[in-house]
């Protein structure tokens, strides 16, 4: 390695500091154009302001939580395949005491696994997937159903 160095010329220092200042101010720029009231509102979900679609899915899963008992197997059904996949993935984290089973996996149907689920969380669907299932609760953007499955 080379010898120690010293005495950064002021021009370089100024340059680095101006660069840091530009970058430091950049996060503030969007805040200046957004209404203050909106900025002062606390987010409802951790992804409110980064991914509105996921925020809505989060709220749906969160509102289903009281109706899925600990240890129960459940699946999530959505008409839109990508939403179904992301709902399943988020459900793993949001229902740590229960067992989510995929209804589809990477857009490939996983009906055999889903058939083992006692609870069905239906997201933004007009009719239940299993007509024989019992409605447990209607929640934001969907409903929770219970059905009889072999133990």
């Amino acid at each position, binding site marked *: *390695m*080379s*010898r*120690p*160095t*010293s*005495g*950064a*010329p*002021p021009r*370089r*220092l*100024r*340059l*680095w*500091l101006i*660069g*840091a*200042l*530009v*970058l*430091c101010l*950049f*996060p*503030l720029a969007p805040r200046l154009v957004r209404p203050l009231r909106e*900025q002062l509102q606390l*987010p409802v*979900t*951790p*992804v*409110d*302001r*980064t*991914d509105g679609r*996921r925020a809505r899915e*989060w709220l749906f899963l969160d509102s289903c939580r009281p109706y899925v008992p600990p240890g129960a197997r459940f699946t999530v059904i959505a008409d839109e395949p990508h939403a179904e996949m*992301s709902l399943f*993935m*988020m459900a*793993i*984290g949001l229902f*740590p005491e229960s067992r989510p*089973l*995929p209804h589809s*996996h*990477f857009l490939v149907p*996983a009906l055999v*696994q889903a058939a083992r689920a006692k609870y069905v969380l239906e997201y933004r669907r007009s009719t239940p997937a299993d007509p024989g299932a019992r409605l447990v609760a209607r929640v934001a953007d969907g409903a929770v159903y219970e059905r009889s499955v072999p133990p």
Partner: protein
Amino acid sequence: MGRFAWLGTLILLPAAGAPLLLRATFRRFTLPARVVLSAGVGAALVSFALTLFSLAGVAWRVAPAFVAAALLAACLSPLAAGRADPPAPERLGPPGSFAALLSALCVFAALAATLGATATSIDLFFFWGPKAQQFAIARGVDTAFLADPSQQYLHAYYPPLVTGLDALASMAGGRFSWTSAVLTFPLLLAALAVALPGVLRGAAPRTAAAAVSALAVATAAVIGIRAEIAGNGDMPLFFYETLAMGLLLRRDAGDAAVQLLAGLLLAGAAAAKVEGLAFALAASALFLALRGGTAAGAARSAARLLLPAAAALGGWFLFGALRHVFTAYSEYGPLFSLHPEHGTSIAREIPLVLYATARGLPYAVPLLCLLAAGRVDRRALLPLGTAAAILGFVVFTYLHLAADPSQWIGWSAARILAPLPLLFCLAAACASRPSPEGA
């Protein structure tokens, strides 16, 4: 209360690394830098201890994990023998104070963005969080969970540091805390802002070190906010990589103690994310090539720099192989099964994604600062060569996907190419004019 205990576990990490960093030889760093370096070493060793517990079939517990890490640090400390003087008093001056203020503002911006949910990583909810939560419930690596075919997207093989530490914090807090997990972004950015000026003082004068650190912290803050990394493994990776490279650029980087410390931080990088291994290998190889010296000396340096990472990842893959869950980094097919037909799309998409991240400013500004700084000395080859290696690794990785990787690039390029501008900042620290009196 749970959230405080969750974050408190991470704030206690300096204690785990303290038996090593308390050695007199590390007086060469400022006290704040020493505390943060101790936390970085502590985290890497706690993660390694958790891997050892998993191999031994011992349930994870918070206190034993910290004690085991501290014992490992104590065992390593004879390798860092010797004394070193504290950094010579040097006036910070108004530019240095302004740099410190800028760094503080960037940390505040990152904190505000995190609390306002504008920097949250969706990967926290898809991968990092669920795994950490499950490991906390299982009090160890839940192999049955990872081996379940329906959990294949959780990347079972992924290196263990972030999920392990998050799991340990969850055990201390009683449950996984999503809020605390996202707060690790501003927390680690603050740690970087505190430590980097002290680390770079061995590479550049105090004011220059402060200014370059402010530039690096601002770069990490803007990319972190705009690429939404709060809660995932990217900020731990930036933390480890930046500090390790800062150490290797110091004029005392030839000392065994500094190399050992850099090696432990490189192990932290390799255990934080897959691309951390590429960074550790590239940085170590370039460091050894640039240093020259005898073969025996190079072998000793290589051991200090790479054995910690080899132990961390070796233990992890041994565990995966013994439990039949994973044996290597995988998922995208054989190593040399490439799809060169995607080269054009990769070359087109990467600049677009970087431009979409704050109009490309956090990538362009450090590069412009480096170019405009004028002549750099030979040390700059280390960060610049590592940056080239990381770019090559990223392109090589994207070439593995059979389908068009455009969407994947859109998700990831802004984050995984973030080490490049950070390395440009560090290269700028080598732009100072040689002077007979030293730094």
